[in-house]
């Protein structure tokens, strides 16, 4: 059991989250992928804290959890709002940035 195992695992989770972010169009899955990536960073922080016998990493992870929570609340509010307005959670429909005349 070395810290490397934890770190490799966290990296794989991060990669899976990134993959989910790019291939899925479902806004919920994208949200969950972001959560997953943040959690994998959390795991890395905890691992380093344990390996260095220092509480600072743990505290950073703790603060991260708070950040994850606030991010979740905002993201979910946005999802609810978008679904109420457009009755869909397909990211392909949200193209307000586009200037229709120029294409």
């Amino acid at each position, binding site marked *: 059991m070395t810290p490397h195992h934890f770190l490799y695992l966290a*990296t794989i989770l991060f*990669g899976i989250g990134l993959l989910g972010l790019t291939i899925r169009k479902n806004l919920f899955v994208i949200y969950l992928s972001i959560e997953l990536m943040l959690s994998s960073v959390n795991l890395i922080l905890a691992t380093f804290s344990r390996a260095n016998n220092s509480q600072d990493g743990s505290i950073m992870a703790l603060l991260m959890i708070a950040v994850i929570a606030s991010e979740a609340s905002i993201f979910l509010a946005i999802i609810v709002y978008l679904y109420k307005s457009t009755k869909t959670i397909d990211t392909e429909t949200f193209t307000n940035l586009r200037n229709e005349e120029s294409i």
Partner: protein
Amino acid sequence: MLESIIFSILALFLVIGAISMISFKQSVYSAISFLLVMIAMAGMFALLHQSFLFLAQILVSVGAVVTLSLMIITSINIKRDNLPKHRVSPKSIFLSSILILPIILVIFKAISSLDIKFVEVDSSFGTIQSISTTLFSNWVLPFEIVSILLLSALIGSIIISKRRLNL
């Protein structure tokens, strides 16, 4: 040895949960897979002697975030028709994998060059007492800032969900 077995099982749960999370078509299943991932993650924290983080993970991530997500999914009651129509094509998976691979590889390379080991830690490591001691001695300002962040996230989410805008 026991730790290794527990790590392996947890890692298996994590990876399977993560993959199934991004694979399910239905959002509810994804959220349940994510619940699995979060619980396994909490187990990982326990394995790392981070007892307070374990607790916080269970309370916040599992108890609040995932539950909230599930509640939202069920409450807005997304119909099957409103889900994205297209299936995920193998081509896009392949292309995305090619894109992501270098990122993962470079992190792997960085990790493999690290020279760190788990050292023996005293029993107070990761407990509420020791964490709070550190938190309120060295990390007061970030703690306060995070509380403000949480407050603003609260206000923001309320305002966003209350707003009526024509998209």
